């Protein structure tokens, strides 16, 4: 493969789609370029569970013929995409990252996959994830996903493969699913862009549930423009999801005006200055907030004192929903679960109804505090994660105390779960690198249906920082 092919692979979906439309790029050559990159790098990175090479090349040939005939299929004509293996794909293995579903072949597409295909995109494959999108997997049944910036480090989860594939340019664009940070965390660890839309903005039909009350499908891409492009295609009402919003879908790319002028941004001090926040993360996020101020935003501190409770409240609600969903399999096939997943679900099954109800009330209180801040600010700003990607070994070590359990399972989640508990949109965009070369993610959070605002600010920062031009050592 030539360096020109690598440049093309890293160009991203919006640029590639423009080239296809101008007939300067062949969909067949583009699919071949990604299949070659997957062959070169994915033996180590393990982003993919299934690669649909043959069908993708056939679709690409059809897209090429259609292009020659002037038959425009849609805004992603001939563009290869991949999705988290939590999303149903007709006739293609869909495992949810679990051995329990090793033979599950859905008969239909999830709504989001159907919408991308209807826009002309080509399914390149299915992406690795932590088991059932729950996080904490010790042994991945389909291979250990690895961070392209340092393969000894975690790529984040649960949309691990989507983060890797976006950052290492193993396909044009990807979709993940974010319940408590599962799109934003891999975006942060892998140096990609990850958007959690407003709850209800995107249909959940055909998405294996992690926690119905917070699950939301979102794009994981190399650029903010690609995230805006994909969101515009997958968002919108769906008769197959009773909780999908009927709000009209705006032109998200039109929001990318290149500045932050007039935006009021609140920096969440509990997360920026929190005891768990790594020094280099704090420094990079403060630098980004200054950058946004230089781009025209009014930036000041804001306190959300309930945020330290968010991780535990989220896990009580998410895990109890998941434990209820998995009750039968847990009873009948417990040995087929990864030990980390099984321990998480069994623990949730032991929490009392009283505690779950308190957590549900805690969610409402945390949400109101966040929404109150969002009445005063257009955006809230925080680190996506308190630390850069940790070594993979830290996930597989046994938990030896309740204090360690709280730190390992609740503390990190308090950074991403406030947006999940509030049902509001949030994005992670790269904002720097540690001295060891690991990416750092900046999180921006907006009001319900505030995706244009969050995309606008993230795009302005992205253009200023130019970090998406950096390429990982593996990929």
């Amino acid at each position, binding site marked *: 493969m030539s360096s020109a092919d690598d440049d093309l692979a890293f160009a991203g979906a919006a640029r590639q789609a423009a080239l296809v439309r101008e007939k300067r790029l062949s969909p067949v050559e583009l699919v071949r370029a990604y299949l070659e990159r997957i062959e070169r790098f994915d033996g180590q990175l393990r982003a993919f569970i299934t690669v649909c090479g043959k069908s993708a090349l056939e679709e690409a040939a059809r897209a090429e013929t259609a292009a020659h005939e002037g038959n425009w299929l849609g805004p992603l004509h001939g563009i290869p995409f991949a999705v988290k293996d939590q999303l149903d794909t007709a006739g293609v293995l869909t495992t949810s990252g679990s051995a329990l579903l090793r033979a599950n072949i859905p008969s239909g597409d999830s709504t989001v996959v159907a919408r991308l295909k209807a826009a002309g995109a080509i399914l390149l494959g299915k992406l690795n994830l932590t088991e059932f999108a729950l996080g904490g997997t010790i042994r991945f049944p389909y291979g250990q996903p690895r961070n392209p910036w340092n393969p000894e480090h975690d790529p984040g989860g649960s949309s691990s493969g989507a983060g890797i594939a976006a950052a290492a340019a193993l396909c044009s664009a990807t979709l993940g699913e974010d319940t408590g940070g599962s799109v934003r965390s891999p975006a942060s660890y892998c140096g990609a862009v990850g958007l959690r839309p*407003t*709850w*209800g903005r995107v249909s959940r039909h055909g998405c294996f549930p992690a926690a119905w*009350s*917070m699950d939301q499908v979102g794009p994981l891409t190399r650029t903010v423009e690609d995230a805006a492009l994909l969101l515009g295609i997958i968002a919108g009402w769906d008769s197959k999801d*009773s*909780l999908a*919003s009927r709000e009209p879908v705006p032109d998200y790319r039109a929001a990318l005006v290149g500045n932050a002028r007039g935006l009021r941004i609140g920096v969440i001090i509990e997360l920026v200055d929190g005891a768990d926040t790594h020094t280099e993360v704090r420094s990079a996020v403060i630098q980004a907030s200054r950058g946004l101020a230089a781009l025209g935003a009014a930036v000041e501190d804001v306190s959300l004192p*309930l945020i330290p*409770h968010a*991780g*535990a*409240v989220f*896990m*009580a609600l998410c895990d109890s929903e998941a434990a209820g969903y998995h009750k039968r399999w*847990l*009873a009948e096939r*417990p040995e087929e679960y990864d*030990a980390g997943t*099984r*321990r*998480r679900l*069994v*623990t949730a*099954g*032991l*929490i009392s109804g009283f*505690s779950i*109800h*308190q*957590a*549900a*009330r*805690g*969610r*409402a*209180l945390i*949400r109101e505090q966040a*929404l109150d801040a969002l009445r005063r600010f257009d955006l809230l700003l925080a680190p996506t994660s308190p630390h850069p990607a940790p070594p993979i070994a830290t996930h597989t070590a*046994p*938990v*030896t*105390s*309740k*204090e*360690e*359990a*709280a730190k390992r*399972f*609740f503390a990190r989640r308090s950074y991403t779960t406030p947006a999940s508990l509030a*049902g*509001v949109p949030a994005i992670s965009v790269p904002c720097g690198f540690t001295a060891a070369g690991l990416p750092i993610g900046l999180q921006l959070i907006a009001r*319900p*249906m505030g995706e244009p605002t969050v995309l606008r600010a993230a795009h302005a920062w992205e253009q200023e920082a130019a970090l998406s031009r950096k390429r990982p050592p593996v990929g």
Partner: protein
Amino acid sequence: MADLAPEHVRHLAASLSLPLTDDDVAEVTHRLNAFLDALAALDMLPLQSVEPWPTRPEAGA
């Protein structure tokens, strides 16, 4: 609140027909005790008048 011991957790799991192996019991005990501490801390918040909506009605449907 006193921590639950592994034998308490074994008994609870058995009574709820939840699978708990010897390999899992220590971690499940630590996780459950962490939950009990974290959720007990919510008792100090003004929760009595809070309605536990999973989302704001106008933000979802």
